[in-house]
């Protein structure tokens, strides 16, 4: 790949336009060769006659997407990073120091290194186009802005606004960028060239010159907060927010905060030294590597089709939802949100109303936060029609079934639905625990039947398990895989089997919580170990409440039947089952719930209900986590290596992160397993097996791995 011509200087007489067009790539990014070319271009311009320089991209919807992550993926030494950064700083500094004013004409994504480049220009004009996003997403990859972003951005738009962008890895559109002062002007896309030319003329006429934009607070409270004294408050407040959001698991935002704080007001070279040090420190952490791997897994999904053949997904316009409840309504909302025509069907108008409410509430929240206009809200609502009969079903391309989890009823409804659909319509079941292959028996043409397992709440949980039944066709799989992506979800193709992938791994962990309670753990401490020490979004008790105690126990019993003796269920389960506690849905579970359904505190009456003596938290944090997580890893080994539920460790990790909120900084369940060491895990499991029970018996495949010194990755 030749990158020599990626940046081209076009002579316009008094001024020059530098055009960025990375040949053979979809996006413009800053790689080593590109940076080298930028250096050449800078040198050439430095000694040129031009009175102004304009930078623009020839790519549609992309200005500069960022630095090339591929290049830093494999870097493990601080010194290697340091030399990269030193070079980048010297190039950007030289660009900043060019004798003539520079203008960035930004249309499309301008992120990370791209954003850091434009803030080393003198002037910026952005378009109001939807594709224009300017920001610094570095912390999302476990690193910090390293090409001067932590230095130039605070100077330019103030500490408060810059922390807002840097610490959350946010990006802003043209309009907001103009309001923040990040760009000088946000203009309609069609007028960009014209406005840039006006600015060039101003520069040539001497009305505008070289500058270093410096932020000036306007109103009094902001003036104070951007002052020497006020900044202290801003920094400490920001730190609290970061700690609350990251629970301290993610070092990058803290490092970025620290860098901004230390570098603010320092000389360029000193500030850059501070930034480089901080960058190198976080960039070599496994956490950053994990986040980058995760990014690649996600990018991989974007390119995949869900099947190995080159079958194309069908074009979907009309989507049906059977069963309108909370789940069905959520699916309908998701589909309509992406402009699919939706038909909901249920057995009563009251049930349909629940579906409408579910959908409406999600959008109403967006309207309240001004993320959606009331006209768009109305438009989207109008896409959802409903009836008690099969009105409109002959037009549907896909029907998603979300009725009661009962094989007999589902089979009946599916057989009935098929009669009202066109021949090639795909029927997908949103079952979480029933066999897709068995259910397909109700479909006269089971190749058009597939599983599409959403997680609750549908609009928040990014994972969809696309379940291939025995007879499911490539076309049906690819279509549902594609539809999931179009609905904004991350699909993972799984084979049929008890609990598919995510629930199969999750349930043993939740089940173990009951044993841990039996052994004297308190609900609160147990959950905190997993949330605050391990990084799960919810502890197992809280999650049991969320899923529904009855549902969880029911599924466990199913697993016992299908997976055998290794699924052990605590005696506490029967006591819960005999009670009226269903968890969050009836506001009675391990926790108390307020009106809004938020948990308030542990419901201590649970202990007496379960016949537990007062908890003494006698087990160590280590034992709790091992008993939960290693069991999960053990089951993952069986699912991946023995039952081939999915094909790669990456899919397991992606599914767990997207479907359960498994802490991304750990890179996923199996990355975590590799990090702990397979032999270690096998040894521990064997110990628990001897001491506690059969459920810890290491899987054959895991033992084999340990013996051969293998890892998941």
């Amino acid at each position, binding site marked *: 790949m030749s990158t020599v011509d990626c940046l081209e200087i076009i002579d316009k007489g008094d001024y020059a336009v530098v055009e960025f067009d990375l040949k053979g790539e979809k996006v413009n990014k800053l790689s080593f060769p590109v940076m080298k070319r930028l250096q050449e271009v800078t040198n050439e311009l430095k000694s040129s006659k031009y009175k102004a320089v304009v930078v623009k991209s020839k790519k549609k919807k992309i200005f500069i997407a960022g630095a090339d992550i591929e290049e830093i993926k494999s870097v493990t030494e601080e010194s290697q990073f340091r030399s990269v950064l030193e070079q980048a700083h010297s190039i950007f500094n030289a660009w900043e120091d060019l004798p003539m004013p520079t203008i960035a004409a930004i249309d499309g994504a301008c992120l990370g290194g791209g954003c850091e480049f434009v803030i080393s220009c003198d002037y910026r004009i952005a378009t109001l186009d939807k594709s224009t996003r300017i920001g610094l997403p570095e912390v999302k990859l476990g690193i910090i802005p390293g090409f001067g972003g932590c230095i130039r951005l605070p100077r330019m738009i103030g500490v408060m606004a810059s922390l807002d962008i840097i610490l959350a890895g946010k990006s802003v559109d043209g309009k907001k960028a103009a309001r923040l002062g990040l760009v000088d002007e946000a203009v309609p896309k069609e007028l960009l060239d014209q406005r840039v030319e006006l600015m060039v003329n101003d520069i040539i006429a001497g009305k505008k010159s070289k500058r270093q934009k410096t932020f000036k607070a306007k109103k009094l409270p902001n003036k104070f907060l951007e002052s020497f004294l006020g900044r202290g408050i801003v920094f400490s407040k920001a730190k609290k927010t970061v700690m609350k959001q990251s629970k301290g698991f993610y070092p990058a935002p803290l490092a970025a905060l620290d860098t901004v704080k230390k570098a603010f007001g320092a000389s360029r070279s000193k500030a850059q030294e501070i930034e480089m040090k901080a960058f190198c420190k976080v960039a070599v952490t496994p956490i950053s590597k994990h986040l980058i791997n995760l990014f690649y897994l996600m990018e991989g999904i974007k390119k995949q089709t869900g099947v190995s053949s080159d079958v194309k997904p069908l074009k979907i316009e009309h989507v049906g939802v059977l069963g309108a409840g909370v789940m069905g309504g959520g699916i309908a909302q998701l589909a309509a949100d992406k402009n699919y*025509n939706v*038909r909901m069907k249920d057995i009563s*108008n*009251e049930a*349909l*109303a*629940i579906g*409408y*409410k579910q959908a*409406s*509430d999600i959008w*109403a929240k967006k309207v309240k936060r001004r993320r959606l206009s009331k006209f768009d809200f*109305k*438009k989207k*609502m*109008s*896409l959802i*029609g*409903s*009836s008690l009969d099969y*009105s*409109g*079903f*002959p*037009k549907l391309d896909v029907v998603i079934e979300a009725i009661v989890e009962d094989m007999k009823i589902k089979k009946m409804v599916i057989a009935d639905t098929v009669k009202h659909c066109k021949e090639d319509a795909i029927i997908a079941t949103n079952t979480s625990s029933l066999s897709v292959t068995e259910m397909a028996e109700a479909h006269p043409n089971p190749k058009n039947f597939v599983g599409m397992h959403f997680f609750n709440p549908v609009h928040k949980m990014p994972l969809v398990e696309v379940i291939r039944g025995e007879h499911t066709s490539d076309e049906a799989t690819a279509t549902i895989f594609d539809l999931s992506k179009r609905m904004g979800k991350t699909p993972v193709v799984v084979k049929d089997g008890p609990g598919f992938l995510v629930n199969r791994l999750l349930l043993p962990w939740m089940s173990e919580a009951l044993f841990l309670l039996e052994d004297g753990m308190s609900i609160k401490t147990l959950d905190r170990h997993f949330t605050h020490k391990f990084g799960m979004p919810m502890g197992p008790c809280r999650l049991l409440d969320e899923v529904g105690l009855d549902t969880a126990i029911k599924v466990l019993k199913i697993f016992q039947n299908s997976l055998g003796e290794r699924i052990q269920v605590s005696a506490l389960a029967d006591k819960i089952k005999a009670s009226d506690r269903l968890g969050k849905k009836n506001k009675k579970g391990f926790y108390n719930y307020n009106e809004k359904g938020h948990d308030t505190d542990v419901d201590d009456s649970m202990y007496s209900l379960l016949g537990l003596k007062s908890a003494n938290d006698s087990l160590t944090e280590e034992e709790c986590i091992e008993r939960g997580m290693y069991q999960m890893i053990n089951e993952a080994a069986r699912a991946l290596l023995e039952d081939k539920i999915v094909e790669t460790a990456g899919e397991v990790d992606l599914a767990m992160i997207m479907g359960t909120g498994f802490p991304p900084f750990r890179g996923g369940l199996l990355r975590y397993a590799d990090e702990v060491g397979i032999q270690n895990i096998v040894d521990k499991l064997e110990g628990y097996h001897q001491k506690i029970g059969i459920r810890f018996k290491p899987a054959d495949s895991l033992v084999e791995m340990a013996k051969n010194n293998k890892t998941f990755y």
Partner: protein
Amino acid sequence: MSRNVVIVEGLRTPFAKAGTDLKDVHPADLGEVALRELIAKTNLDTDLVDEVIVGNTGSPSDAVNIGRVVALRAGIPLKTSAYTVHRNCASALESVTSGFEKIKSGTMDVVLTGGTESMSQLPLIYNKKTTSWFIQMMSKKTAMQKIMHLKNLSLPALLNPKISVMEGLTDPFVGINMGKTAEILAKEFGISRLQQDEFATMSHTRAAAAQESGALKDEITPVFIPPKFKKVVHQDIGPRAGQTVEKLAKLRPYFDRKYGSITVGNACPLTDGAAMLLLMEEEKAKSLGYKPLARIRGYAFAGLEPERMGLGPVYSTPIALKRAGVEFKDLDLIELNEAFAAQVLACNKAFASDEFCQNKLGLSKALGEVDPNKLNVNGGAISLGHPVGATGTRLVLTLAKALKAQNKKLGLATLCIGGGQGGAIVIENMNV
């Protein structure tokens, strides 16, 4: 080759007395529900639709061409044209006859027609004095000028808005309220209070029976009420099973307190609702595999004295029958809109009167007696309600469904029109 126009299918929202369950639903939303569900029910390929025509009288200021709003929200493609028609009480008959003409002429093949109205949402309007105060206010530049202008505001004028529903129901040519036009007919045709109350009671009894038996179910699609969706309106709100003449007798005359006989009980209520029909050229419908409900045989609109507008059906019917090539006596069912019991009964008398038919209509003799068993078999506007811009379509829809249910052939739907007109349409069940 002559082209026939057929009604493939139709659907409406429940009709609800103004101020009740549908009061917060915008008329565009009512129309949307009826149209979207009609499209679903018929599995219509919306690409085939040539035009959408929607009747409406309230012209909500936030949806002035409400027909277009209804069409787009219901899922009609952007490329397809849509417009709104206004012929007062017959706006939704005008939409049907416009569609009929376009198909009959060969201009179009597939037209969606209907009407929608929310009489709950008809606005109050600032009177002239207050309006001009606001306009002056806008021209004031400085804060001081604005404050000074405040003192020019007349509180009595501010608190005396024009009530658009009242204005709409008053004839602007002769200055008489619709209720008063019915009073004129009651007196001229000698219709007693008791006769009116008996008729109103029958309307309720029939509508309630139709609800009970499910006779109306097939023409209604439910409306879900946002934002809480706690309510689902799935049947008409108006019909009262326990209605009696005695109860109605207790009401005081509303329009003429002293000598009048029209009460709110024997007149139709202000109502919210929408109705839609799918019209097609007959061969087109058949080629798409549809089994249409009915064929449109002919229609007519006719004018008369605004103060006797209630007799409109008597003027328009003979013309429609002539155009349809149908004799009055051959009609199996009649839907005659119940604006007022007195007005319906006056029409009946006029239909049967040689003198009236000769003098006023120029016919050789009376059209004939209206058999009460053929008239408004599922009740009418007194019980079901009269959302002005939607009723015309509702009459045709109810008639077509009733013909089908009773396996009868010929039907007439006719209504009186504020401003002194009548509209009538003759349809034929294609399945007998």
